[in-house]
Structure formats: structure tokens, C-alpha cells
């Protein structure tokens, strides 16, 4: 039993920290700290900085231009980035599509698409969910019918995060309608500029158009854009979902959020004293901090297992469930910490600030926005209800 990081990992952490000090523009970290939305250009700017250092794709093997980090190194990078308030790396190309192409893609697909993910030429989005399907992903209906050297795609995807910025989408489509719902699904790469594609932003309750509906109307996709074998897409989809689950606990985000919360609570004055000295509020902070200390160790225990070659099992469902609770608690306390100024949130779905300067602490508007936005944490990527069912069935055998 040894709870400390190896000297190599400690050295790596120091490197990451140094890099962030040197290369992370405070213009960006300040926006992240205040939980403001980043523009497309700002996200791309940070991707480019990371790519220059060779650190954009920590999870990719070096042969594909990745950093080839261990699970523990990735964890260290994510933790340091989050606590430095660096923008997060977009998962769509790096964490989701990349591993699928590396494992199941053709050589041409790898050579065409992987470099363009790294150099920022392509912005990918995900076409998995469909209206009415919810947690029942396998029931998808978007069809792809073979017509010569093309598939003709018809249907609708939804919850496509940041799809409004994307020029490519990876989609699950149905290429066969008989058999079990999991069978007959294929994995297609689609150029968003193909005729017949319409993107409609969906405004979320935090007032941002973070997700989109994507409509396909007789969209012709070249057959070479099929990944792997026709009708085997469910396998690739599950592989992708497993990889997406890295950093499922969000320890770094929670740690950063907790430090922001404390900073706000030190600045706010309640009944003549800093809010952080109010015993009832301080107890609420302490309770969530104690939960976070334990959850971070669960995360490390699973990382250590992964490092030892074990595939993470249903334990990661516990991590998602508890990690979500902790992050949402921190969001809730942060919103409450900014006091009456939590009301200043602009609710009309307009990106950016209110037309006049709003009063209260700088963090106020972002606190409410983040609270509302992060209600999604317990819904997407397998809702908390789905995680509980997985735990009950796979761990407990109920």
C-alpha cells in the first residue's frame, strides 16, 4: 500500500504545472474560473497550444501523434489543467472518435482524419442520441441505405453537443432493420457540409445553445466513410463509450470548483463576517470536501487497477454517480454563495453578458449558469438512474 505518486509521475506533474504557468493565457483561465462560456476561437486556441506541445491527445498512442500517456499521467494532466482553470479538451475527436478509428478504422481513415483532429482542421461532433430514445440507445432509427457507392442517410439525431461548430459528425445509423435492436447498426463518418444536413441549436435552460438537433434528408455518404464492418457499429459504439468514461469522476473539475467556492465564500460578507466563517455554510463546504477526498481516492484506486491492466468494471458507475453528486453539490453551494446576485443570470438565451454590467461578485452570473448547465451531469453519458441499475445488476446481481 502506497498512496503516493511515483517519482516519475511527480516529475510529470511538475512539468504539466510549469507548462500551464507558461502557456495558459490568463484571458482564458479567467473565463473558465468565472464559469463563462468559451467561444469557438478560444477553444481552438487552447487546442493549438496543447498540440504544439504534443499534449492534445494524451490518450492516443505516439504512433498516431498522441502523447501516449499512462492512465495516471492522463489523470495528472486533467487534474492540473482543471485546477489551473485551463479550458477542457473537447472530447469528440480526441477521446471519442480517435480511439475508434485507431482500433477499427481503415488505414486511409486513420491517415486522413487523425492528423486533422490534432491540427484543428476538423471539429467533430457526435450523432448517437435520437429523439424519443433517451437511455435506450439501441432503439435508434436513423437509416442508411446502400445506393451504389453511397449510403443514403435519413433521420434525426439530437443532443449533439457543440454541433453548430462542427464540420464532421460520426453517426450511428441503422443499416438493417431485422434482428435485435443492437444488430444492424453501422458507424458512419459524415461531412456536415453534405447537402441535406440541417443543424438546429437547442437552447438549454442555462440560456446557451450547447446542443443541437441534426436532421438528415437523403444525405449521400461515400461508402469509404463506413468505419469497420457494416452492421457491427454497436461494438464500436460500446468501445467508444468505454473510452469516453475516462475522467468520469471529474475530480479535477470538482477540486477547481471547490477552490472557487471557497474563494467566493471568503469574499462574501454575511452578517458582518466572511461567509466562510459562518459555521453552517462552512459545514456544508466541509461535508462536500470530505466526500471529494474519498471519491478522489476511489478514482485513484480504479486508475491503479487500470495501470495494473485490469479493465474497469461497474465500479466506474459508482464513480460517475458519486462524482456527479459532488460536482452538483459544489455547483449548488457556489450559486448559493453568491447570494442575491445569483439572480442576475441573463435568461433569454443570449450568449455573453447582460446588456448592462450586473452587480455582485464577478462569479455570480457564471455560478448560476454552471449550476443549471451541470444538471446535465446526472442525465447524459448514462443517467444516474442508469448507473444505479448497472450497479444493482452487475455488482450486486439483483
Amino acid at each position, binding site marked *: 500500500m502506497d498512496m503516493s505518486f511515483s517519482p516519475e509521475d511527480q516529475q510529470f506533474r511538475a512539468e504539466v504545472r510549469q507548462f500551464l504557468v507558461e502557456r495558459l493565457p490568463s484571458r482564458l483561465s479567467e473565463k473558465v474560473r468565472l464559469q463563462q462560456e468559451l467561444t469557438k476561437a478560444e477553444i481552438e486556441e487552447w487546442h493549438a497550444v496543447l498540440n504544439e506541445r504534443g499534449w492534445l491527445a494524451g490518450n492516443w498512442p505516439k504512433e498516431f501523434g498522441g502523447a501516449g500517456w499512462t492512465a495516471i499521467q492522463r489523470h495528472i494532466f486533467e487534474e492540473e489543467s482543471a485546477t489551473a482553470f485551463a479550458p477542457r479538451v473537447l472530447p469528440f475527436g480526441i477521446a471519442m472518435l480517435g480511439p475508434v478509428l485507431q482500433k477499427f478504422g481503415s488505414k486511409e481513415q486513420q491517415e486522413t482524419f487523425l492528423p486533422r483532429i490534432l491540427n484543428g482542421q476538423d471539429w467533430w461532433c457526435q450523432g448517437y442520441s435520437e429523439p424519443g430514445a433517451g437511455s435506450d440507445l439501441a432503439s435508434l432509427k436513423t437509416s442508411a441505405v446502400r445506393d451504389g457507392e453511397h449510403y443514403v442517410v435519413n433521420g434525426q439525431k439530437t443532443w449533439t453537443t457543440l454541433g453548430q461548430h462542427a464540420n464532421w459528425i460520426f453517426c450511428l445509423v441503422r443499416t438493417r432493420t431485422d434482428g435485435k435492436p443492437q444488430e444492424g447498426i453501422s458507424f458512419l463518418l459524415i461531412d456536415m457540409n453534405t447537402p441535406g444536413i440541417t443543424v438546429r441549436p437547442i437552447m438549454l435552460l442555462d440560456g446557451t445553445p450547447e446542443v443541437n438537433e441534426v436532421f438528415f434528408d437523403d444525405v449521400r455518404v461515400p461508402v469509404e466513410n463506413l468505419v469497420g464492418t457494416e452492421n457491427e457499429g454497436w461494438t464500436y459504439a460500446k468501445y467508444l463509450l468505454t473510452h469516453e468514461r475516462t475522467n468520469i469522476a471529474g475530480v479535477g473539475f470538482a477540486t477547481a470548483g471547490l477552490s472557487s467556492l471557497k474563494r467566493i465564500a471568503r469574499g462574501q460578507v*454575511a452578517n458582518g463576517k466572511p461567509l466562510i466563517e459562518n459555521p453552517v455554510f462552512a459545514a*456544508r463546504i466541509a461535508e462536500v470536501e470530505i466526500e471529494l477526498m474519498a471519491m478522489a481516492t476511489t478514482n485513484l484506486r480504479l486508475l491503479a487497477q487500470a495501470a495494473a491492466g485490469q479493465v474497469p468494471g461497474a465500479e466506474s458507475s459508482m464513480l460517475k454517480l458519486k462524482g456527479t453528486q459532488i460536482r452538483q453539490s459544489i455547483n449548488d453551494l457556489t450559486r448559493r454563495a453568491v447570494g*442575491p446576485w445569483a439572480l*442576475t443570470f441573463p435568461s433569454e438565451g443570449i450568449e455573453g453578458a447582460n446588456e448592462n454590467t450586473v452587480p*455582485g461578485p464577478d462569479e455570480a452570473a457564471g455560478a448560476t449558469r454552471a449550476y443549471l448547465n451541470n444538471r446535465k451531469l446526472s442525465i447524459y453519458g448514462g443517467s444516474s438512474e442508469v448507473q444505479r441499475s448497472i450497479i444493482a445488476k452487475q455488482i450486486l446481481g439483483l
Partner: protein
Amino acid sequence: MQFTFTEEQTMLGDSLLRTLARDKTPAALMDLGAGAALLSEADGGFGGTGADILMVFRTLGRALAVSPLLDSVVLGAGVLALAGEGDLAEQASVGAIQVAVALDEPGQRYDGTVGTVARGGLLTGEKTMVSGADTATHLIVSATDGVYLVDGAAQGLTVTSYRLMDGGRAGEVRLADTPARRIGDLTLLARPTAAAILAVCADALGAMEAAAELTTDYLKTRKQFGRPIGSFQALQHRMADLVTEIEQARSAVWNLAGHLDDEDRDRHVAATKSLVGKIARRVAEETVQLHGGIGMTEEYELASIVRRLLAADTRFGDSDHHLERFMALSAA
């Protein structure tokens, strides 16, 4: 002991609900007498009791109406009536004038410390989060030595306004040697503030009822894995817990309504606001969760309910603020 409304109160509630379904303008509300129902007969209205406030605001909350009734009538007309300004109170209650009440000051959170000072009939100070400030014809302003009435067009008065999350607007109010008329001492504010807290809680109760109905309907109609998600026992039990909490909120609102003019009013204000704020947050979070993705979207009706519930917790002091007030009052 009787937990029912008068026939008049019930009729007003019903007609409000019908009208709000097609017309949510302040004028429509005023035409129905919703403003006058919030003022006592002695002050030119025909209501003003806790039960009247409960009925009107619960209905507004259910219908998700944005109205000037809270700021201009319950608070504004409420203070004016107590100050002996019956004419102005009556005008506010029918929407002829718009009153904003400026109490909080920057950096003070919920504790209401006042730094605004009056010198020779001129007010100087800063007020924050003044709801309805930008459209007010009259402002009621707390100063160190009492309560003042300020004309909305007075010299030295600046209002910078911004949107609020519940759809209303508020403003930062700066007073620089602004002419003002003293209308009474600070104790004037106690009953109108308590009444406003009742109004916010009743509004939240209506919004929680709307959220619960919406969610129950969704659970009945939405199908997943081949059956309505409302047939899954885990969701049934969570929904049962949620309506049990709303029942608690309902009783808390009744408690405050019933004790609004009793000597233990402050204790009930603290208890009710603390409990309703806490339950409002939980209802907001759980109803989104029980909906899943659709509950996250702005175009679905739940979004505005959720923001209204969060705003209700925040206005006039959140659940923790009132929990501590309750502790202080219990220790006394």
C-alpha cells in the same frame, strides 16, 4: 379551525387562472382586481390578508406570470398604506403608478444593513437588486433614519437595470442628493416584507405544483424500453417523495399566511422561507432529472419553472439565511 378560502377568494383565484391562460399582462391582472385583493378595505382594497396573498400568488406561480404585484403592490402599496399614504397605495394597487422598494445595499447580502443617509430632505446612497426599479414611477427607499419616498424622475437618481433569471428586471439605484420625502420609520417595512416573503413562497408553491403536474404527465406518457417510465418503481417512489415535500411546502405557506399578523410572525417567516427555499431547489432539481434531456431545454415549459424556483429561494434571503434567523429567534 378552517383551512379554506372564502368564496370571494376562490372566485378570484379561478378567474385569475382562466385569464392568465390567455393573457398574462399586468393590465389583465389589475382588471380582475388582483392588486386590490392584496390591500385591505381600510386602504382602498378588498383583501390584504395572508389568505388573499396566498391565493393570488399561488395562482401567479402556477401560471408562471411575471407581474408587478409583488414589488409594486405587496411591498410598495403595503408600505405606503402603513405610512398613511392611502391614495398612493390605492393607485399602486390598481396599476396606476409603479412602485419599487429599494432596501438592499451592495456588499450586504441578505442582512439589510442600511448605509443610505438623508440630509436636509436629500438622499445619498446606493441600493442593489431593486426589483422593478427601471419602470418605477415611485421608489420607496430605506435610509438610516427611516423610510423615504422618491419620485421616479427625481434629480440625482440613476437606475442601471438588468434582466433577472425569473424573467423580471432589477436595477442598481444610485442616489446623489436626491429629493425625497420621509414617510415613516424603518418599522414600516416589517409587515410588507413579511407579506412579500409569503407572496414569494406562495408563488413558489404554485410553481412547484405546476412542475409536479408537468412531471407526472411526462412520466405517464413518455415511454422507454417499451413502457411508460412512470411505471418504473424507482421513479414512482421519487415522485412520491417529491409531492410529499411539496405538501410540506404547502403547509409551511399556510402557516405563514395564517400567522402573518400574529406576534410570532417572524418565526413563521423564517421557518417558511427556509423550508420553501430548500424544497423549491429540490423540486427544481428532481423534476429536471425525472424528465431527462428534455428537462434541460429552454423550449420546454419546465425551464422557466426551474429558474423561478431558484429565484424564489434567493429573493429576500435564502434557506440558510432564514434557517439562521430561525435559530436566533428560537434561542431568544
